[in-house]
């Protein structure tokens, strides 16, 4: 229980700081911290496979991609004077978003506490091994697994085409 609170508190605080940071570089690094805490929660849920790919794929690959783009664009500051002035003069969107977020957490908390806190105790000894996951993935879910590879291919081609710099010199030859 203490480990759950520890990892949950790290995840929540780090996610809040991701939003509060003004420098996107710090946001990305704090999000990696949040993902590490979530990986610990997956271990507590007896899902070691998800915990490991959370670290390898999310923190290791996707976040490094984000970090690379942040360094490439090199625009660390968001709130220029003009943007801050706009926030003071026309404070509509941000306040509205904050109100909507508070309403959302209120609704979700209300819906979850209505069902009774003690009803959701986990059954004992339900360890899902990597072998079971692999067998499930390549038998029952083999078609979605293959579709996933096409999705990755399309995303890769799309990213290359979108981020390509238009070079007019090479068109004629």
């Amino acid at each position, binding site marked *: 229980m203490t480990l759950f609170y520890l990892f949950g508190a790290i995840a929540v605080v780090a996610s809040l700081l991701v939003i509060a940071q003004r420098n996107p570089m710090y946001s990305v690094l704090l999000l990696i911290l949040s993902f590490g805490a979530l990986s610990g929660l997956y271990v507590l849920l007896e*899902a070691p496979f998800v915990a490991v790919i959370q670290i390898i794929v999310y923190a290791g690959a996707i976040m490094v991609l984000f970090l690379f783009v942040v360094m490439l664009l090199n625009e660390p500051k968001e709130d220029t004077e003009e943007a801050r002035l706009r926030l003071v003069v026309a404070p509509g969107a941000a306040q509205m978003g904050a109100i909507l977020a508070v309403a*959302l957490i209120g609704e979700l908390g209300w819906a979850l506490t209505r069902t009774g806190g003690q009803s959701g105790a986990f059954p004992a000894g339900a360890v899902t091994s990597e072998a079971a996951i692999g067998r499930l993935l390549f038998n029952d879910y083999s078609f979605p697994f293959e579709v996933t590879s096409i999705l990755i291919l399309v995303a890769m081609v*799309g990213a290359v085409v979108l981020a390509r710099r238009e070079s007019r010199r090479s068109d004629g030859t």
Partner: protein
Amino acid sequence: MMPTLNDYLLLSAVLFTIGTAGVFVRRNLITILLSIEIMLNAVNLTFVAFGRSFGTADGQIIVFFVMTVAAAEAAVGLAIVIALFRHRESLNPDSFTSLKW
């Protein structure tokens, strides 16, 4: 006393709300993409918790697919961000209003 399913669902709801607030409040395209990642991870936590509760591995399989889609989304989204930055030298979504009616 062990944490119950409800505890995990509440934590997931809090994380999802933080991600939603980030999408609404922040005015930086990269931070908005990071907030979307927070929301995807909150949903992943829900899937794993429910899979543990039902005693099956299907929740973890779905998490695998969600991670794949998140990787594709991050790659395409960051490519779009780079293309937009080349056009306007800005990451503020308010400066891209050409399609606004």
